[in-house]
C-alpha cells in the first residue's frame, strides 16, 4: 500500500490529492474497526442495557484502573460512521471528476464511479476485511432508489410525457415482455447445448432471468442521457420507458419466481398474470395519486408554518412508495404518480423558499444516491462469488442486444402508423442503443434464493451485461449522437409568445374538433382542464391562486425571474432604472445662463442615434431575460424572491411606458449629429460614462406620466436627483439648454473634465449594469448640466425636484 501511494504522490496535481484524501479517509474508517474490535465487544450495545440492570450486582469488585483520559470505542458508532464515510467518498469522487476536465468529457460519470467502486472493493479486499454487503437489496430498494425516482417524477415534463404516452407504454410493456421472453427462451435453448454444462437450468429460471435482465434501468439511463443532452422527444421516450417498465418487471419477477418453485405454468396462471399486471400498474398509480392529493391538500394549510413544507412533499412521497410496496404494487409508478400529481398544486401553495429547498434537496439526494449506487455496484462486483460460464454470459449479452434491436424496430413499425410525428431510423437507433441495464437488475438478482436458482451464475451474467451496457454503450453513445447528428436539446427558453400561441392553438384545435364532431384528445384534454380549474384547483390551492389563469401565472413567474436577475446583476432596478425622464421646472434655473436661443437650430436626432438609444433601452429590458436551464443535476434555475414583486411590476410597467414614449418622440429629439458621434458613443460605453447622449424628452405629447413615480437615487457624491417629467410643456428653454450641451460637447471632444459632473458612483451600477447605468447617467447629466458658460457648481448641487 505505501508503494502505491508513493507512486501516486509523485504527480503533483490537486485533484489527485483530493482522491487520495478520499481513499485515506475510507481506509482509515475501515481499518479503525480492526483496532477497536476488542473494545467494541465490551460495549455490548444498548439492547443489553435493560438486561444488565436485572442482573444481580455481582461485579462490585472491579479493580480500579487509571481513569482513561482518551479512549477508543468504535462499536456504537460503527454503522453511521461507515455510512457517512461512504457518502463522503461518493461526494468527493464527484468533486474529483469535475476537476479533471478531459476525463468527464470522454467518460460518463457512471463508468468512473463504477471504476472507483471496483477500486475501493479491491482495496478493502486487500486489506483483508470482509467487503460489507453494500448492495443489499433492502438498502437499495428502500433507501437508494426512492430519491432518484422521486426526483425524476417530481420534475417529469408532463406535456411531452402525455403526448407520447402511447408510444412509451408500448415500449415499456410490449417491449419488455418481448425482451423477457426472447432472452429467456433462447437462453434456455442455449442451456441445452451439451458442452455448456447448464442442462440443469430449467425453462422457468431462464425466463425469470430474462425478465430480470430485460428491464431498462432508469438510474443508468438518467445518468448517461443527462450528459448527452439529447432532444426532448428521445429523452422522454427512453426515460419514460425505463420508469414504466417497472410494473412489468415486478409482475414477471413474482410470477416466474412463484412458479419456478412449482415447476409449471398453466394458461390460468398466465391470465392471472395479465390481471395482476393491470392491478400492479394501475394500483401503483392510484396509490401515488392519492398520496399526491393528500400532500396538495396539506400544503394548502401550511401558510403559517412554511418551514416544514418541504417535509410534507418528501414524507408523503416516501409513504406512497412504501405503501405501494406493502401490497406488492409498483412502487416506482406510485412515486412518479405522486410527484407528478402533487406538483402543480403544491407549487401554487408553497413559498418560494420552500420550492427552492425541495428542488435542492431532491437534486442532492438523488445525486448522492446515484453516485452511491454506482460505487456499490463496483464494490459488489469485487465481492461477489462469481461463477463464470462462458456460454451463459456471452449468450446473455448477445441476446440482450439482439432482442432490444428487434424489439425497437418492430414496435416502431407498428407505432408509426399511429403517430403524427414519426420516429426515424436515427431515433430508433438511439432508443435501442439507450436501453441500458443497471443496478435494479442486480438487486433483483441478489434477491433470488440461491437454493433454487444458480444465483451466482445469474449475478455474474447480470453484472457483465450491466458493465457492458454502461461502459461500452454509455461511453460511445455521445460520439454516436454527434456522428449521427441527432437533434440536441434546445434551449428551453419558453417565451411568453410561445405560451400565448400554444394556448391559443389548444383552444383552436378544441374548437375545430368540436365543429367536426370528433372527440379527439384535444377535446378530452380540454375537458380535463376545465374540471381541474373548476373543482380541483379550488379544493387544493389556497386563496386567490386557485383562480389565476395559467397564462397569468406563467407571466408572473417570468417577471419574477426577470426581476431577480436584474437585481442580481447589480443594477438594482427599482432605483437605478432610467427613470421616466420627465423634464419639469428646469427653466427657473437655466435661462440666465443660456445665450440667446434664437440662432440655434433644432437639428434632428439622427436616425442611427435614435436607434441606438432605443436598442440600449430595449436591451435593458431584454438583457436579463431568463434562461430556463434544463432540469438536470448540474444546473438549477435561480429562484425569484417574493418580496417587492408588486412594486417591481409597477415599475416595470412604467419602464415600458418610458420605452413607448421614447419611441414616440422621434421628431422632437434635438440632439444634433455630433461630429464625434462614435467617440461619444464609445466613450459612453466605458464605465466612466462621461459623455452623454441624452434624450431630451420635452415637448412630449403623450400622456402625462406620474411625476412622483420615479426619482433617481442621489448618490453620495452630489449627483442631483432629477425628476424630469416627460409631459412638461416647457419646450423652448429646455431645448436651448440641451443645445448648449451639444455645443459644449462639441467643443470638448478631447477634454472631458470640465463639462461633466463627476459620474455618479458607478459602484452599485457597475457590475453588469453598465447599460442602464449609462443611460441613467446620460440622462441625468445632460439635463442638469448647464453648459460651459454657466456656473457648474450651482447647478450640480441643485436637485431638480418637481
Amino acid at each position, binding site marked *: 500500500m505505501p508503494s502505491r501511494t508513493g507512486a501516486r504522490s509523485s504527480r503533483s496535481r490537486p485533484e489527485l490529492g483530493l482522491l487520495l484524501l478520499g481513499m485515506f479517509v475510507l481506509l482509515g474508517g475501515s481499518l479503525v474497526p480492526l483496532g477497536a474490535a476488542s473494545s467494541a465487544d465490551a460495549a455490548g450495545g444498548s439492547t443489553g442495557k435493560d438486561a444488565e440492570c436485572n442482573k444481580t450486582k455481582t461485579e462490585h469488585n472491579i479493580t480500579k484502573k487509571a481513569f482513561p483520559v482518551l479512549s477508543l470505542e468504535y462499536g456504537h458508532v460503527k454503522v453511521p460512521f461507515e455510512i457517512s464515510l461512504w457518502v463522503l467518498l461518493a461526494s468527493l469522487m464527484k468533486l474529483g471528476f469535475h476537476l479533471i476536465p478531459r476525463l468527464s468529457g470522454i467518460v460518463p460519470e457512471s463508468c468512473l464511479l463504477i471504476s472507483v467502486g471496483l477500486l475501493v472493493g479491491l482495496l478493502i479486499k486487500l486489506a483483508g476485511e470482509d467487503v460489507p454487503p453494500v448492495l443489499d437489496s433492502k438498502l437499495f430498494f428502500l433507501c437508494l432508489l426512492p430519491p432518484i425516482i422521486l426526483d425524476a417524477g417530481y420534475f417529469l415534463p408532463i406535456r411531452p410525457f402525455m403526448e407520447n404516452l402511447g408510444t412509451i407504454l408500448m415500449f415499456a410493456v410490449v417491449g419488455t415482455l418481448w425482451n423477457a421472453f426472447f432472452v429467456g427462451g433462447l437462453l434456455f435453448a442455449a442451456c441445452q447445448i451439451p458442452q455448456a454444462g447448464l442442462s440443469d437450468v430449467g425453462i422457468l429460471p431462464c425466463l425469470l432471468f430474462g425478465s430480470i435482465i430485460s428491464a431498462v434501468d432508469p438510474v443508468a439511463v438518467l445518468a448517461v442521457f443527462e450528459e448527452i443532452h439529447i432532444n426532448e422527444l428521445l429523452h422522454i421516450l427512453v426515460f419514460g420507458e425505463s420508469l414504466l417498465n417497472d410494473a412489468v418487471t415486478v409482475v414477471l419477477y413474482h410470477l416466474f419466481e412463484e412458479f419456478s418453485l412449482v415447476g409449471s405454468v398453466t394458461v390460468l396462471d398466465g391470465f392471472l398474470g395479465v390481471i395482476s399486471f393491470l392491478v400492479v400498474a394501475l394500483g401503483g398509480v392510484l396509490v401515488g395519486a392519492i398520496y399526491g392529493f393528500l400532500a396538495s391538500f396539506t400544503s394548502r394549510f401550511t401558510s403559517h408554518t412554511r418551514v416544514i413544507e418541504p417535509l410534507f412533499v418528501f414524507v408523503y412521497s416516501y409513504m406512497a412508495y412504501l405503501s405501494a410496496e406493502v401490497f406488492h404494487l409498483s412502487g416506482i409508478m406510485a412515486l412518479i404518480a405522486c410527484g407528478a400529481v402533487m406538483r402543480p398544486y403544491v407549487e401554487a401553495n408553497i413559498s418560494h423558499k420552500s420550492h427552492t429547498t425541495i428542488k435542492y434537496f431532491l437534486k442532492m439526494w438523488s445525486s448522492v444516491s446515484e453516485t452511491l449506487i454506482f460505487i456499490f455496484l463496483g464494490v459488489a462486483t469485487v465481492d461477489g462469488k462469481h461463477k463464470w460460464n462462458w456460454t451463459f454470459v456471452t449468450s446473455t449479452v448477445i441476446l440482450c442486444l439482439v432482442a432490444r434491436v428487434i424489439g425497437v424496430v418492430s414496435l416502431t413499425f407498428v407505432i408509426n402508423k399511429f403517430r403524427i410525428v414519426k420516429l426515424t431510423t436515427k431515433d430508433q437507433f438511439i432508443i435501442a442503443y439507450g436501453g441500458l441495464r443497471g443496478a435494479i437488475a442486480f438487486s433483483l438478482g441478489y434477491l433470488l434464493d440461491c437454493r433454487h436458482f444458480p444465483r451466482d451464475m445469474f449475478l455474474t451474467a447480470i453484472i457483465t451485461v450491466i458493465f457492458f451496457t454502461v461502459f461500452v454503450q454509455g461511453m460511445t453513445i455521445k460520439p454516436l449522437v454527434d456522428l449521427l447528428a441527432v437533434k440536441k436539446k434546445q434551449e428551453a427558453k419558453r417565451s411568453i409568445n410561445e405560451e400565448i400561441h400554444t394556448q391559443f392553438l389548444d383552444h383552436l*384545435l378544441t374548437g375545430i374538433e368540436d*365543429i367536426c364532431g370528433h372527440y379527439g384528445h384535444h377535446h378530452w384534454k380540454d375537458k380535463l382542464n376545465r374540471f381541474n380549474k373548476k373543482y380541483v384547483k379550488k379544493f387544493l390551492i389556497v386563496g386567490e391562486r386557485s383562480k389565476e389563469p395559467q397564462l397569468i401565472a406563467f407571466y408572473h413567474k417570468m417577471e419574477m425571474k426577470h426581476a431577480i436577475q436584474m437585481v442580481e446583476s447589480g443594477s438594482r432596478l427599482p432605483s437605478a432604472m432610467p427613470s421616466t425622464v420627465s423634464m419639469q421646472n428646469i427653466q427657473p434655473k437655466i435661462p440666465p445662463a443660456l445665450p440667446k436661443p434664437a440662432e440655434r437650430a433644432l437639428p434632428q436626432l439622427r436616425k442611427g442615434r435614435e436607434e441606438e438609444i432605443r436598442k440600449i433601452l430595449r436591451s435593458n429590458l431584454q438583457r436579463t431575460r431568463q434562461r430556463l436551464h434544463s432540469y438536470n443535476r448540474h444546473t438549477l434555475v435561480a429562484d425569484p424572491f417574493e418580496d417587492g414583486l408588486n412594486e417591481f411590476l409597477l415599475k416595470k410597467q412604467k419602464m415600458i411606458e418610458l420605452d413607448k414614449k421614447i419611441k414616440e418622440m422621434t421628431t422632437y429629439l434635438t440632439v444634433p449629429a455630433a461630429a464625434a458621434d462614435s467617440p461619444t458613443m464609445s466613450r459612453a460605453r466605458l464605465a466612466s460614462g462621461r459623455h452623454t447622449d441624452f434624450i431630451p424628452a420635452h415637448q412630449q405629447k403623450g400622456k402625462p406620466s406620474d411625476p412622483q413615480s420615479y426619482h433617481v437615487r442621489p448618490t453620495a457624491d452630489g449627483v442631483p436627483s432629477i425628476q424630469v417629467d416627460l409631459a412638461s410643456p416647457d419646450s423652448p428653454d429646455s431645448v436651448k439648454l440641451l443645445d448648449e450641451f451639444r455645443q459644449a460637447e462639441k467643443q470638448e471632444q478631447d477634454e472631458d473634465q470640465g463639462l461633466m459632473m463627476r459620474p455618479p458612483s458607478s459602484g452599485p451600477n457597475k457590475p453588469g449594469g453598465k447599460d442602464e447605468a449609462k443611460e441613467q447617467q446620460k440622462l441625468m447629466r445632460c439635463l442638469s448640466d448647464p453648459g460651459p458658460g454657466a456656473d457648474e457648481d450651482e447647478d450640480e448641487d441643485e436637485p431638480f425636484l418637481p
Partner: protein
Amino acid sequence: MGSSSSNLNTIPNSQELMQETGFSAAHLLRLYERFEFLDKDNKGHLRPEDFEAVQELSTNPIGDIIIGSFFSPGQETVDFPSFVRILAHFRPAEKNRTRDGAQPEPANSSTGKLKFAFQLYDRDRDGKISREELLQVLRAMLEMQVTEEQLESMAERAIQEADLDEDDAISFDEFKKSLEKVNIDHKMSIHFMK
C-alpha cells in the same frame, strides 16, 4: 367503397375537392355528413348561427374567432367547399411529397397551418398582428380574469420579444419564428383526418 362512391356523387365537385385538399373519399364523405348535420335547415350553406349551435363552442374562449375564420370577410355564408378548405389546414402533413414549384403551398403544410393561425390573430388582414389585435385575443382567452393593465403589460412583453424589426407589430415571419420550437405539425393536426 361502393356505397360511398354513390354518395360521393351528391357532393358537387368532389373530385376536385379531393385533389385540392388531399382528403380521401371516406373523409370527404364524413365531412359532408357533418356539414349536413350542422346545416339544420338544409339550406346548402352554413351561417354563423349554425356554428353557434355547437354546444362546446360556446364555452370555448375563442369560439367567436374560430367561427369567424370560416367566413371570408364580408360573406355571411359558407358553402361546403369552403368548409372543407378551411378544415384541410388541419390535416396532418405528409412528408416527402414531391411537388413542383408551380403548385401553391398546400394548406396542411406547416406554413399553411401557421398562416391560418396567423389570420385568426390578424383580423384586418394587413399582414401584421398589431398590439390591439393581440390584446383582443388575450382578452378573449383570459376571459375577464385579469386586469387591463396586466393584459397590456403581457401584450407589451409579447411584442417586445417577438418584434425583431421593431415596427411594433408581429409580422408573419416573426410569428413563425416565435413558434419555431413548437412542433406545428403535431400541434395543429387532427388525427382522424389522415
